[in-house]
Structures are given as C-alpha cells and as structure tokens.
C-alpha cells in the first residue's frame, strides 16, 4: 500500500526526520492560502499521485487529452505562479513514466517552502529478498532515475544490509555517510536522520521508503525533499491508522472489492476471463491462454477454501469487464472439492444468466463427481481434462485470438 508524498512527509516529521514546511491542499484557494501562510518567497507546487517521475511528467486535460502543462512539480516565484500552476495541476491527468499511458487524475497538491541546495543525494530503504534483511541504498547521484545510475555507474551506489538482531549500528551510518562524501556537520546530520528513518521503517512496517532527492543545504543540514513510502499490507492488522492514509481513488475499485471478499483479482487487457484456485496456477492459466493464441482478461485466484458464494462473486467480477468474451475455469481441487466448485459454477451461471462461452477444467479431489454434476446440468458448459485442452477450447469458442 502506497501513500502520498504529503502523508509521507508528515510521517517523517512526526518521527524526527527533517523536512521542509509544507501544506497539503485540494483546491486553488487552498494553495494560495498555503503560500501566504508559509511566508516563503519561493515554493514548490507538487502534484500528489502514487507514481514516480512527477517532475518530468506532463499534465493533460482529462477529456480532450490536450497538453495543459509540462512538469508535474513546479517552482513558483510568486503568488500568481502558485495560482497558475495549481489550477493547471488540479483536476487534470498527470502522465509519468510510471503512471501508465492514461495517467492519474490529480486531486491533491502539496505546497512546500523552498530551500537552498548544495547537493542532491539518493536514499532508499527496502526489504532485500536475497539477503532476507533490510537494505539501505544511497548514492551521490540524487534527483536522477536510480535504475539508470545502477546500470551505468553501479560504483556510485552504496549498500548496507541490516542484521535484524543488532539493528542499524553507528559504524554503518558513518560508513554510508562517508561514502557519500559527507563530513563534519553534514555527516552528523545524516547520521541522526538515518537512525530516525530506519526506526520509522521498522515501526511502521514499511515495504519501501525512497527519498529522491535527499539534500544537503548550504548550512550542511540534511533534509528529505521527497518521501515515497510504501507499507507491507500483511502488517495492516497492527496499523489501524493506515485506513485514514489510503487513497481509494489511486486503487482499482474492482481490485479493492475483490480483495474484500477474499479474492485476488488483477485486471488485464485481453478478452478471456479466468477463474482459478492458487496464485501460481492462475498465472500459469493466463500464460497458457496466451500460448494458444488468446489474451487473458484478468488474473483471479479464488483461494484455497472458496465456497459457492465466492465462486458466484468471482464470476460477477469477471463479467463486469465488458471485454470478456469467454471464461475459462481452472480448478485443481486439493482442500477445495471439485463437486462443490461444480455446484458453484452452475449456481453462478444461472444467477448471472451467463451468455458467454464457458470452459471448465476440473482436476483433483472429487473430480468425477464434479464432472458428472456439470454434465447433468444441461447447461452449455464445455468440459476440459487438462489446462492445454481448456485453453485451446476457450480460444476456439471465442473465434480465435483477441
């Protein structure tokens, strides 16, 4: 789960990580009031969306798709510029390298005081899968695309892994600061900031914290000019406050609803709906549809213990997508019994008056009962014995590839 920069900055501030003064607003009047109250001659007007590359992104009108303004983060030198920039940002679509072609509607902006910058750095904390520990990554090449730095000048990226038993130690903070060329007051400021940031990462169950750029001011202070924070959703049960930070407009509505009913759903661009038990098998089902010339419309894992009702919900979610021309059900019954799935499929087909071709592949526990139930239903359900046959059948039934 990701949060906005302004929320990340509030979290930083509350945990003792230095940020600039800033105010979150949702309309132009608010932006002007924020400018007045900050009392800073120069301010940054920053679009708030859950995607990186905002500065280099472009704003488009949501309907006409006409270019409104280049750059989703602007430096304003006057009240008039604040008015101009915020009205160009709010209500328009920001397209960045990470936002997808459609872009994201900007409903929130952040007005932040300016500061002088002596140098920009990159800093990130994340969970390193290979080393099974928290990894801190820093570079002197701040403000740039870090993947680019990693590819072309990997020696400029410095890494430390944290042993969870000992935590982040003094020498590690010092080593990293010195690797960035810091000394004296700036090293001291970095040392303090990194300790606070690591504590914040652990106590908030973060999946990722990225600060790009982290800056050194002319007064040798280390300040976070950016705050990209992602939480580990598995830890939601011990963070009741996350609900208030969630921006539902940033999430696919249907994916959120699927999750609430215990289903895992991701919408794709094809026309063959899939209903599968297990994440790995669900991915494999999509892959095999593609292999036989079709295009999957979604990823959908009904989980290990789905009942009749859940199967019905799954069907209705798949059918919300107007592109769906056919459905492939692929169940390998373990705990889940094929006879129960078969009854669920029949109930859903009837209740939703399904009018697209349906191929059902059942295997595993009680497979014979399941197949018999489908055959005796008198409904137009095409059975398949294995995944390849199922995929070939559904592709043929919808008249070939997408």
């Amino acid at each position: 789960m990701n949060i906005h920069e302004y929320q990340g900055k509030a979290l930083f501030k509350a945990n003792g990580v230095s940020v600039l003064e800033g105010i979150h607003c949702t309309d132009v009047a608010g932006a002007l009031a924020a400018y007045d109250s900050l009392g800073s001659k120069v301010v940054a007007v920053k679009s708030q969306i859950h995607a990186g590359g905002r500065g280099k992104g472009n704003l488009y009108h949501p309907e006409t798709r006409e270019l409104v303004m280049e750059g989703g983060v602007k430096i304003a030198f006057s009240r008039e510029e604040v008015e101009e920039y915020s009205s160009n940002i709010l209500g328009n679509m920001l397209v960045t390298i990470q936002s997808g072609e459609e872009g994201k509607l900007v409903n929130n902006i952040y007005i932040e005081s300016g500061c002088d910058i002596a140098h920009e750095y990159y800093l990130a904390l994340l969970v390193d899968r290979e080393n099974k520990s928290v990894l801190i990554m820093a570079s002197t090449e701040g403000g740039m695309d870090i993947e680019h730095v990693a590819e072309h000048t990997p020696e400029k990226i410095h890494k430390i892994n944290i042993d969870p038993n000992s935590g982040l130690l003094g020498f590690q903070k010092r080593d990293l600061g010195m690797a960035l060329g810091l000394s004296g007051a700036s090293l001291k400021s970095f040392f303090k900031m990194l300790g606070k940031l690591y504590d914040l990462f652990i106590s908030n169950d973060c999946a990722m914290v990225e600060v790009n750029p982290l800056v050194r001011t002319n007064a040798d202070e280390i300040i976070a000019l950016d705050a990209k924070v992602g939480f580990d959703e598995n830890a939601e049960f011990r963070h009741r406050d996350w609900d208030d930070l969630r921006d539902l407009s940033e999430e696919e509505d249907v994916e959120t609803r699927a999750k609430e009913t215990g289903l895992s759903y991701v919408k794709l661009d094809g026309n063959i709906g899939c209903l599968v038990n297990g994440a790995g098998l669900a991915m494999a089902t999509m892959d095999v549809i593609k292999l036989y010339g079709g295009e999957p419309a979604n990823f959908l894992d009904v989980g290990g213990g789905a009942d009749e009702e859940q199967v019905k919900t799954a069907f209705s979610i798949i059918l919300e997508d107007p592109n769906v021309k056919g459905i492939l059900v692929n169940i390998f019954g373990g705990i889940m019994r094929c006879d129960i799935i078969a009854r669920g499929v029949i109930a859903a087909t009837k209740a939703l008056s399904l009018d697209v071709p349906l191929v059902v592949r059942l295997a595993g526990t009680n497979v014979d009962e399941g197949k018999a139930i489908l055959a005796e239903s008198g409904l137009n359900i095409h059975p398949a014995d294995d995944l390849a046959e199922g995929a070939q059948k559904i592709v043929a039934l919808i008249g070939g590839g997408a």
Partner: protein
Amino acid sequence: MAIWIQEDAKVLVQGITGKQGMFHAGKMVEYGTNLVGGVTPGKGGQTVELEGGNYPVFNSMVGAITETDADATVIYVPPPFAGEAIIEAANAFHTVKGEGVIVCITEGIPTLDMVKATAYVANRPGVRLIGPNCPGIITPGENGGAKLGIMPGHIHAKGRIGIVSKSGTLTYEAVAQTMSIDEGQSTCIGIGGDPVNGTGFIECLSAFQNDPQTEAIVMIGEIGGNAEQEAAEWATANCTKPIVGFVAGATAPPGKRMGHAGAIISGGKGTAEEKFAAFEAAGIACARDPSELGQVLLASLKAAGLR
C-alpha cells in the same frame, strides 16, 4: 531415502485446536502421517480427537518435543502470531534435540516478522524452515506416508521424482504430470510465494542431488526476485540429475502483485522470460505449458537412460 522428512517422521501441529489446524491435522493422519501431538498455549493437557485416535496438546514447543521426540512441526497459526511460532519452534528444536524441520503454511505474515524469524532460524544450523505461505512438504510412502501440509495426499505416489515449487496448486499440477507418465515422487516441497522465506530452491536441489531415491527433479518458479536464476546457475555447476522446469507469470504485467506477496515484477526485474532464459542456459528442459511437464520429463528421463 527421501529428503528431510522420512515416511515415519514424528510430527507436531502448532495451532492444533484451531479450525484450520484441526482440519488439516485430521487430513494428515488420514494420509498416514505419524502425528504425535500438537501445541496450543493455554490448552496443554487437553487432547484432540481425530480419526486416528486422541492426540495430546502441549502448552509449549519445548514441552511437546521433550515429551514426543518430534522430528518436525507444521504451523497453522494465524499471521499475527506465526512469526513468533516459527521462532518458538526453532528455539525448541535447537535446545531439546539440536535439529528439526519447521513447516509454516500460514499466508499473510508481515515481511519484517519473517526477516526476524529467518535470521533466528539461520543462527540454529540444525533447524530447517520451509515456507511460509506454502502447501508444505510431502514424502509419499508405500502405504500413505508423511504429509506435512495442505496438499491433497491422494494424488501422490512413492517414486523417484523430486518436486520443488513456489506455488501450491501448480505443484499439484506438476505431481499429476509425473503420474501421467507413471512416475511417483520422492519428496515434494512447496517453498512458498513470500518475498522472505526459509528453505530456497538451491537447498532443495542440493538435497535432491544427494538423495539416492531421487533420479530427476521438477522445479516450478514464478515471477519476482531472482531465486530461480541463482538456482539455475547453481545447478549448472552442481547438479547431475535431469531437471525439468516451468515459470509462471509470462503474461503478468509489471508492478502488479499477482496473488503471492513475492510475485511482482519490479523495476523490470524478475520476469518469467529472464527465468526461462536462465533455466535454458543451465540445460534445464523447460515446458512453456504446465500440461506438457509430463512429456518434457519423459523425454529427459529417456535422454538420461532412465526410461
């Protein structure tokens, strides 16, 4: 010889009085697993009645292992408590007998809890963790066998194919594929789909390589991370037995979590294509469709003179 779990292994269930724990303990006994008891703090002294008889419940893992000399434990504890359940089990196996296998089925454990738990287990070299977020491990026997997890026992048979996979139902698919060419399994392991987990592909491949019962290996990966690439590289230098592979997620879009917490292509890394390429470079015979795993395996067995 199978790997890590022998047919007659003595097994505990952590969370045995819970709904999931009791249901699956019953299925384990039904399959023939040598269940010796369970642990639920505060319910020590009670018994749990399953088809095979009455099983004692203990308050702690130290108490349970001391009393039963268990070789392994299966954890069905809910996510908020599962990380600690792993640590409790690791401590108990380490202090009471110096070794043991922990299988954690639970899905949805916070990642930082797993960072702590895996570090704890790593400091106790005799203790092995499998999972979490996995179907478990099964060693089929002549009659029944040892089933430590949630997989359907009846689809398995004793044989010479070792299976290792990140996925649950896709593992069952691989098992069915071996059966379709009349081959049984030595041991099947689901290592789980979480970003931070216990036993990895390389440890499984290494154990299968050293296991006389295992003559060929099926390895099923999925998008995210680079464990498959590392395993392929390791296999090139160290594995002489034929390996057959599949990777799920060739059609997954980047940046989207595909069900499993670890199944995500981030920064363009961890794609199925990368992993298939690494498999092929290592001489692993790949199926692009899991329904063809059986035929690819059969061809590999023939090429190795095993059929």
